[in-house]
């Protein structure tokens, strides 16, 4: 059966090269565009090192301090995270992260000076995010408690400063203050924006000037909450709301508001300031775009499949005359067509990977990502993901049903006598 099927498909392909080409190009173009979107979306939202746990992390990126007549929105202060989110009992762990701090990095008596993004954080950071250490290890709770100047640096910076990645124990100047390197990690792509930095140090090694206008509730920190599983999300949100309520009781003039946070990774990437993203709206938009990308070529291909089927009417009639049921013919036509679709689909997926590789600058980079110094690099781990192949297959299946469904149904139901005459 399978060999016959393949022969049949090859025969169809050869019979009319131009039409075959049009079908394959049409399918490939549709699948390429769809998969470029899917891969871009996966890079934005799937879990990969060091943000392996995106699916079970909750995000608090904005802080909003509200007084009658005015409100002030920014990141959160460390004090707020310490008093509101650190004590939460449900999560596995909670980290406070101040990233995107630009500092000058150099070595004592060194000639090279780099502007780098420094992340000030706590020891829990290394549990929420899964880094692979090339050398050394992260700083510890004791280091953070006592403000010991240790730093984890990325590989490029280590090589730029010392010409080697073996720099553990060596000094590094962060805006003229001396730190000791305790670990080296591979460069983090700016697509992993929450974990991204070039240097990571304990937040206690620097001074963050408190914003007294907001009673030290807003500041420079984001909070990432790692849940044991997604099913804990609701409980964590409820606990956080209670915690904020308690915290607000001690504020003098205003209140701190969560504005829908802690929220999932999906909602946090689309958040605009104080406004939580409209998740449904975004999904709907994606769905409409995907539907158009499928529907337009499907109508095209339908017309062509129908023409092709007309030519094969006598064959269908003979098959029927020999006892093939409508259902069997329907499946056969769909199978044949699926093979054609898969040829186009494979080509399309290959094109989409090329597009993502060579045009990642415009397919993936957003304003937020481009504000950082580091490279928006892509790795195989981020893009070659079993889900991508499953999606690609599902979209081919959908395209096949849309484009061959009606022709197959009509053909398989044709009257035997008319079919044999090719009417």
């Amino acid at each position: 059966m399978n060999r016959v099927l393949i022969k049949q498909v090859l025969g169809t392909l050869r019979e009319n090269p131009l039409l075959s080409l049009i079908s394959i190009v049409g399918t490939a173009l549709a699948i390429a565009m769809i998969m470029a979107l899917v891969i871009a979306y996966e890079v934005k939202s799937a879990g990969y090192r060091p943000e392996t746990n995106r699916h079970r992390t909750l995000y608090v990126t904005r802080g909003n301090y509200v007084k009658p007549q005015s409100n002030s929105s920014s990141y959160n202060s460390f004090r707020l995270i310490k008093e509101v989110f650190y004590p939460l009992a449900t999560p596995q762990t909670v980290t406070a992260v101040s990233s995107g701090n630009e500092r000058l990095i150099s070595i004592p008596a060194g000639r090279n000076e780099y502007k780098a993004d420094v992340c000030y954080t706590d020891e829990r950071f290394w549990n929420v995010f899964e880094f692979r250490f090339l050398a050394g290890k992260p700083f510890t709770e004791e280091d953070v408690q006592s403000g010991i100047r240790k730093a984890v640096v990325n590989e490029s910076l280590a090589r730029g400063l010392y010409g080697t990645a073996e720099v553990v124990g060596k000094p590094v100047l962060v805006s003229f203050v001396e730190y000791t390197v305790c670990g080296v990690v591979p460069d983090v792509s700016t697509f992993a924006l929450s974990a991204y930095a070039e240097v990571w140090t304990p937040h206690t090694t620097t001074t963050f000037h408190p914003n007294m206008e907001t009673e030290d509730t807003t500041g420079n920190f984001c909070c990432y909450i790692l849940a044991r599983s997604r099913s804990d999300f609701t409980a964590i949100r409820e606990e956080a709301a209670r915690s904020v309520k308690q915290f607000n009781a001690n504020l003098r003039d205003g209140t701190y508001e969560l504005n829908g946070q802690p929220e999932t990774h999906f909602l946090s990437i689309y958040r605009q300031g104080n406004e939580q993203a409209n998740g449904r709206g975004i999904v709907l938009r994606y769905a409409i775009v995907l539907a158009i990308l499928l529907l337009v070529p499907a109508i095209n291909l339908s017309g062509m499949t129908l023409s092709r089927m007309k030519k094969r009417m006598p064959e269908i009639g003979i098959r029927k005359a020999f006892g093939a049921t409508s259902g069997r013919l329907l499946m056969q036509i769909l199978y044949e067509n699926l093979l054609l679709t898969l040829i186009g689909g494979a080509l399309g997926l290959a094109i989409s990977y090329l597009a993502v590789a060579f045009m990642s600058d415009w397919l993936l980079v957003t304003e937020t990502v481009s504000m950082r110094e580091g490279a928006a690099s892509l790795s195989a781990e981020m893009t070659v993901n079993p889900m991508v192949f499953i999606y690609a297959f599902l979209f081919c299946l959908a395209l096949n049903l849309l484009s061959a469904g009606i022709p197959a149904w009509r053909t398989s139901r044709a009257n035997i006598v008319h079919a044999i005459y090719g009417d």
Partner: protein
Amino acid sequence: MFTQIIKVIWSQRAGNAWIWAEIALVSVCLWYIVDDLYTRITLYASPLGYDITGVYAIDLRTITPENEQYRPQEEYGASLGDDLLTIVSRIRAYPGVEAVGISAASLPYTYARNYSHLRRVNYETGDTLPSGTMRNYFATPGYVNVFRYATQEGATDVLAGSLRPNYRIITSDAAGKMFPEGDATGKLMFYNDDSIGVYVAGVMNPIRFGDFDAYTPTYIRLLEESVIAAELNEFIFQGIDITLRAGPGADKDFAANFRKEMQTQLRYHNIYMLNIRSFADIRARYIRGDVNETKMYLAGVFFLLVNIFLGIVGTFFFRTERRLGEMGLRIALGSTASNLRTLLIGEGLLILLFAFIPAAVISLNLGMQEVTDVETMPFTATRFFLCQGIAFVLTALMITAGVWFPSRKVITLQPAEALRYE
């Protein structure tokens, strides 16, 4: 000929239905994208109200108390503000620097923004007068020179000179909103929570945050050096921006040279220079998202047009093959090659017309329901017809190209040979 084409289309209705449906769907999508691109490009092409060529941002930071070099300001006998002013005067003295500005939350291509609500009061009648929310720029006169904000007549220096305490320079769109009756200069405005009024110092051209942003009513308020000297602390320091305009003689190495030569001079007391960035670079990063989105839409146009092309080629390929007999007969009866081609293209374009009319009705409804971007530009008849026109022409071109290819086969046909098919 017209009725002939209609007859042909009707007799082929089964095959035409598919291409008709496709063209109708694509027309709506194409209109949506063209409309979006149209608003973007119109906005992009309209004036910004300022000029960033040769403008650089100097990123200054303060060292923290952990630093061995850190001293409390009292030990230096100067305030942090005094030190900042010293640094600014050093920057001003650097060869090739035309102007230096100090400002807070007032830069184009950035996200730090402050807004204030201003109103007018008529004490005699107690009437409600126009009021409005404006973006609030807080800057020195040097800043006006750095970005070359200008009056309608193009005067920058006059504008910079008019910046005084209790006076505000307002943009012409703000002036139009607040003082619809005419000249705004010298008029009085009030802040919402304040009974002390401020005067309009002058009116400047309207401005936008960036190339893809709409105009925002804005005013500039004077940032006095004496205030900087007295009130600047380390927290406020983080929100202060220093910008400079390099003269026409500055080359592309300006930033690198500046950094090399000024690094030690700008390391003063507790302040140091982190970086110097050109506004060309700041702009590129800021508009990145919009540029990418525009490219995305262009890719969408490409996708739709290619599909129309493929659909037409596919449909007409089979059709002409099956109609070779008819075509042969036409040739035998005296039709010329161009007659036949016109007939085929006419068929394609007429199908387009039939598909386009319902599509335009759908598009119009979508437009009326504000599905498209109406924040930057109102949905007007001109905008609708122009974008529909562009979408129509693009589709028509694709259809003509799509019919051209299969029609080649027909017009090279010899009458005798063609008649054999019959």
